[in-house]
């Protein structure tokens, strides 16, 4: 623990951030299904009940709207709740409390109240979990003014962004790709925070920019390696937070390269890829050699059969193909 940084998983990074933040601020409570005794279905909250006791860590009934509802009321009256909703698909059950209550109270009351809370939830396909346990609904929450939406892709980002989300005075939807929990990387020790709304350039390149969100970083980096063999150098940028979005950095990258592809695991139609593509086209139109391309999940409910599910998730081969098409 005392080493300046260590190699660990995203699971460990999130767990470490939760421990450190709850240690730092007694106003933080944790609520969710099975988050206490069992340490959460994905074992993200392991050890927190032991460390902080039942007044800070609540094993709740299976009642998503109720959990978020209590969190909103607690946040308005002095606590800083962190809620775990097991699968992002289940946030639909809590959507009134997130969309109509948490997101709007500050605005509707002209700033009389703030709702400092974090909803952590596991998203993403690939787990062979079928259509109700696999969705990536970030676009839904990005659509709502008053919410922030954060999607880390590395252990360091997971730790730094979660700490900032917890300290933020707004309701934050923190989306964790369940297929990345074992992803390894550096975990900076101690009080490591990252600003919300700042993109990270993972790889420099002059021919095109690929903007990838959450776990889509990894097929994007794989594609970059493959393309490099053909002499094509792509820049890879992870916005890290979708709301607020670091539009300036994305536009600048598009201006420098003249070609942009957006990859996100939400459904392609009316999704994150569309919004980012529109912003880039508005900000970099004169610099673009090609229309901005988009790659989202197939517009189908996520199927169970592994052979079918894999068809719905963006992959490195598709990124390579689209980049080559743009540059042709």
């Amino acid at each position, binding site marked *: 623990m005392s080493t300046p940084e260590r190699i660990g998983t995203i699971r460990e990074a999130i767990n470490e951030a939760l421990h450190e933040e709850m240690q730092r601020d007694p106003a933080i409570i944790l609520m969710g299904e099975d988050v206490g005794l069992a340490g959460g279905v994905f074992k993200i909250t392991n050890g927190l009940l032991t460390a902080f006791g039942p007044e800070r860590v609540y094993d709740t009934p299976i*009642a998503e709207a*109720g959990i978020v509802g209590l969190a909103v*009321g607690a946040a308005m009256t002095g606590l800083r709740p962190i809620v775990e909703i097991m699968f992002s698909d289940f946030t639909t059950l809590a959507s009134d409390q997130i969309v*109509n*209550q948490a997101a709007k109270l500050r605005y509707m*009351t*002209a*700033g009389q*109240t703030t709702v400092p809370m974090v909803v952590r939830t596991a998203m993403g396909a690939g787990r062979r979990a079928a259509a109700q346990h696999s969705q990536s609904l970030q676009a839904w929450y990005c659509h709502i003014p008053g919410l*922030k939406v954060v999607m880390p892709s590395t252990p360091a980002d997971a730790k730094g962004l979660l700490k900032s989300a917890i300290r933020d005075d707004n309701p934050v939807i923190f989306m964790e790709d369940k297929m990345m929990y074992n992803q390894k990387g550096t975990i900076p020790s101690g009080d490591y925070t990252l600003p919300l709304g700042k993109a990270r350039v993972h790889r420099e390149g002059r021919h095109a920019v690929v903007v990838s969100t959450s776990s889509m970083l990894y097929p994007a980096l794989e594609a970059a390696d493959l393309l490099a063999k053909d002499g094509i150098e792509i820049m890879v940028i992870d916005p890290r937070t979708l709301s607020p979005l670091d539009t300036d950095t994305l536009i600048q990258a598009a201006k420098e390269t003249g070609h942009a592809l957006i990859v996100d695991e939400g459904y392609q139609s009316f999704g994150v890829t569309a919004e980012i593509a529109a912003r880039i086209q508005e900000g970099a139109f004169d610099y673009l050699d090609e229309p901005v391309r988009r790659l989202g999940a197939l517009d189908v409910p996520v199927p169970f059969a592994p052979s079918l599910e894999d068809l719905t998730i963006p992959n490195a081969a598709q990124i390579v193909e689209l980049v080559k098409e743009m540059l042709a």
Partner: protein
Amino acid sequence: MTQSAALISPPDLSQIPIETLSDMYRRMVTIRKFEETVYDVYSRGIMPGLAHLYTGMEAVAVGVCINLRPTDNITSTHRGHGHLLAKGGEPKRMFAELLGKAAGYNHGKGGSMHIVDLSLGILGANGIVAGGMGIAAGAALSAKVRREDRVSVAFFGDGALNEGLFYETANMASLWQLPVVYVMENNTYGEYTSTARSTAGSAPARAEAMGIPAICVDGNDVQAVYGAARWAIAEARAGNGPRFVECQTYRWRGHHMGDQGDTYGYRTQAEIEEWMKKDPIPRFGQRLIDGGRTDTATLAAIDAEVQQDITDAVEFAKQAPYPDSSEVYKHVYA
């Protein structure tokens, strides 16, 4: 089981200080005159948006809130003016909010259904049926965790009783023994459908099934509501967990301003008139006079003072400026 009548029988009038009795009467009259002025202002096209009036239900809000401290919390509903006034809301700032003016509680950005005053413990009216129930229980959770002596009251209607959020949050409130009092205003209709046609079984029994002691009182009798709420709030404050109070009452003015009299055909004019005979305000006033606690002239003086306050408030709101256009971008994020 339902609490015995003896346990919650209304306190004898002679045991309630005259200041409290006067205050109850004044608050009920304030709500009535406020709402009837809203009716007038709305009918003349001065007020935009929607208005759901509390007229006829004054005894519920007042009978409950008279037992609360400024630090206690309430959550309210789309029919919230009565709760806010009973908890101490200022008619001037409320009227300004109703007219969309900058001087309103929410700078005109919330309107009739969203007024909040944290300094009075008012965590908000709410445009979503049952939407405030999580907030009430959450405020009670924070009171418990932060060791603050605060009780939360969730006002809701018979319609909200059939929303899932009630069961999700009341279950947790009971499990964790949170200081919440559920005050159900059974005003006989949820929108245009009667409670009889929408609600199976008994409301208190639903609460009791979750281990929450419950009672049902005449919601047009402020003394009865006062007694029931005093019991429920004291129990919650003592750490004995949530309580549930059903108050049976009636809204004279329909679901909203577009629903007057029998326009929608779901109720009759005769039924409305029958309930108007049970008007909680003269009923309480007469009881005070009969009990020798006040006289007609004193009550008339209160009526006149309140009328002046309300007239001043609406005049203030009419004259107040609309918000500057820059306000539209403010307060989206902290």
